[in-house]
């Protein structure tokens, strides 16, 4: 079993409007799979269906070879073992940086000493050692992003879903964060599904890309091919 994520003929409607039409793809272990397309084309809905935050109307979803969504079976989000970085980061405003990690780690590390050690390790990995006791409102944009990444790492999952996490960043911060995430990807041997509408993020980060429009996947290729075609289309 080399594919970690697999979607087969997934369809989804909201209020009678078709959001996803016959979505099928698979993501292999260690891949950095991108989903690229304009706003409202259904990219985020795919991530939410993989995470179990939405149920598909029809079709099946497999994670690590196991069926998690179908017309008969549905695994809850907490049973899927997935790390998700939301577009708005979804940091818990009442918890400190350390509190975020503690909350997640307490699900799988019972001993306090081991947990403390793990917290230190993650804080170091995401360069937040000096901010352990700060709450999200006192962090800069980059620090918040690093905290979201640290929290996702603390979950010890091998599947990462990223929903346009750098959309509000300037180009320097975007580059810095992508570099950090690439190093984490390598260090923790992750498999990633990355959603964006930014063509440059695709080019820098992904190993394979699905281009979407109006709820359909139009093509799945290497980033360079997608980018070339995309620029040809844009040329007047």
């Amino acid at each position, binding site marked *: 079993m080399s594919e970690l994520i697999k979607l087969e003929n997934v369809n989804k409607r909201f209020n009678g409007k078709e959001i996803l039409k016959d979505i099928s793809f698979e993501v292999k272990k260690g891949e950095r799979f991108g989903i690229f397309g304009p706003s409202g084309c259904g990219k985020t809905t795919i991530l939410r269906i993989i*995470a179990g935050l939405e149920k598909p109307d029809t079709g099946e979803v497999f994670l690590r070879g196991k069926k998690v969504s179908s017309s008969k079976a549905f695994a809850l989000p907490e049973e899927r073992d997935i790390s998700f970085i939301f577009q708005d980061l979804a940091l818990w405003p009442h918890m400190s940086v350390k509190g975020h990690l503690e909350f997640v780690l307490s699900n799988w590390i019972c001993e306090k000493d081991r947990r403390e050690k793990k917290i230190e390790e993650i804080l170091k990995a995401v360069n937040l050692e000096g901010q352990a006791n700060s709450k999200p409102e006192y962090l800069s944009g980059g620090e918040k992003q690093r905290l979201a990444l640290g929290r996702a790492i603390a979950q010890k999952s091998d599947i990462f879903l990223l929903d346009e996490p750098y959309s509000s960043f300037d180009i320097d911060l975007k580059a810095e964060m992508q570099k950090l995430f690439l190093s984490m990807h390598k260090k923790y041997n992750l498999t990633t599904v990355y959603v964006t509408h930014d063509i440059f993020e695709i080019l820098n980060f992904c190993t394979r890309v699905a281009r979407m429009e109006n709820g359909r996947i139009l093509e799945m290729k290497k980033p360079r091919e997608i980018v070339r075609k995309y620029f040809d289309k844009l040329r007047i």
Partner: protein
Amino acid sequence: MYNNFKYFIYFLLLIFIFFPIFYLFVYALFPNFQPANIYSLLNYIALSFDSGTVKIFFETILIGLFTSIIAGGIGLILAILLEYANLSHRNFFKSLLFIPFLIPPYILTFSWMGLLGKRGTFTEIIFQNIPINIYNPFAVIVFLSLSYFPIAMFIISLGLKNIDSNLIDSGRLSNRKRVVRKIVLQLIRPHLLIACFFVFVLAISEYTVASFLRVNVYSSEIFAQLAAFFDIRRAIVFSLPLVGLAILLTGSIHFYFRKKSFTTISSSSRKKVNFINLSKRQKAAVYSFILFVLLFSLLLPIGMLFIESELNFFDAINSAKIQIFNSLLASMSGTIVATFLGFFTYYIFKNSKSLITLISFPLAISSPVIGISLINFYNSLPIPIYGTFWIIVIGYLVRFLPFSIFIFSSFFPQISPSIEESAKLSKSSFFKRIYKIIIPLTKGGFLSSFIIIFILCFGEVGLTQMVTPPGFQTLSMRIETLMHYANYSYVASLSLFFLAIIFFAYILHSWVYRE
């Protein structure tokens, strides 16, 4: 786990809120679970509803309607001025103008009777030659409006706060003069409707004001059937039109809100806008209006209580120590239960269209009907609840649960759904998410609910009087009894003590909120 808990909350709502009302219908139609002879039943209903009773029913509806129009109008004007006009100390005025809602209407009426009523020394001294008669339905409407305009103002303010300021700014750029009429009023229509609905229901439930002013209202007819004639069946039959009215109102509200947002009009931009620029003269007029409202709803009544108390505080409090303890105990228990059930009800129904029904149905049931349904239901159960302290707690729960749900409805939308989703994905259990994420983020809602519901329970008298077990008396009941014995000095002293506790809770609420 979540699903099990959801069914548990469904069960609690059914058993406490809906089933007693449903049972009331069953009991009226099938006494002793035998199908009643339809002719004898119809005859009984026809005999019960003589022309006098029908007249009182419609007069009560009119009192409710006029009160909701007047209180809604005052609340709307004050909310718009305090939200959008270039006035100073707006938050201070908002807090001050909410206080009249904390004074139970019967205390407000009692103090006005001291000023203008037959026993009123002021009537004798100042208004000697002017015939003033406050013993009429119009006075009931005025006093109820003075008590309930703050709740209308509060609900409308919530609506105004939720309006996307960009919508107002774009209106100001295109047609400044019509912003209030064409944009603000249109966007807050749901809140205005809910505000009038709240006031209407509170007004038709309230019968102590009417009984002080010797006006017959429908709720006191129900109470009289139970307390004076011990005729529970007739009291139940009398309750049916109010239940029908509640179903009609709830259905209308549900229909209206099918396609409308109740909690938030828009959350994309919430910056404050002051687009009503008043001149100095206009400001003076607005401040005078605020002062006028405060004078009649707060300052004069409290002043009168001081005068009538003859400074008998210590004796009066000493004589009511047990009732004060009972009131605190019952109010705190009711508050805790209503707040937690309100929290979980909102949490479970937050994305459901049934939420508005859950808020409006129990609210639309007036307190005498709640009293009758609880007595009827728990009296027939083998569990010893009727005749104990717990029936009061359940009464408070049924009466004030909608307020708790409503309070949480203005706190929950501030939490982005992804905040809980991220906790779900980190494999946390349902209770861990509630305890570690949701409760800390809605602690403001808990605080508001604890304090506001405590204040409401503490001041409740109509329902408490109906369901209270023998030998148990609350402070509000004690005040009402002393009123009938014409011990005005003790009534005024205890009312002031009562208000001191309520004000303390309110100041605590405002202070913690500022923090």
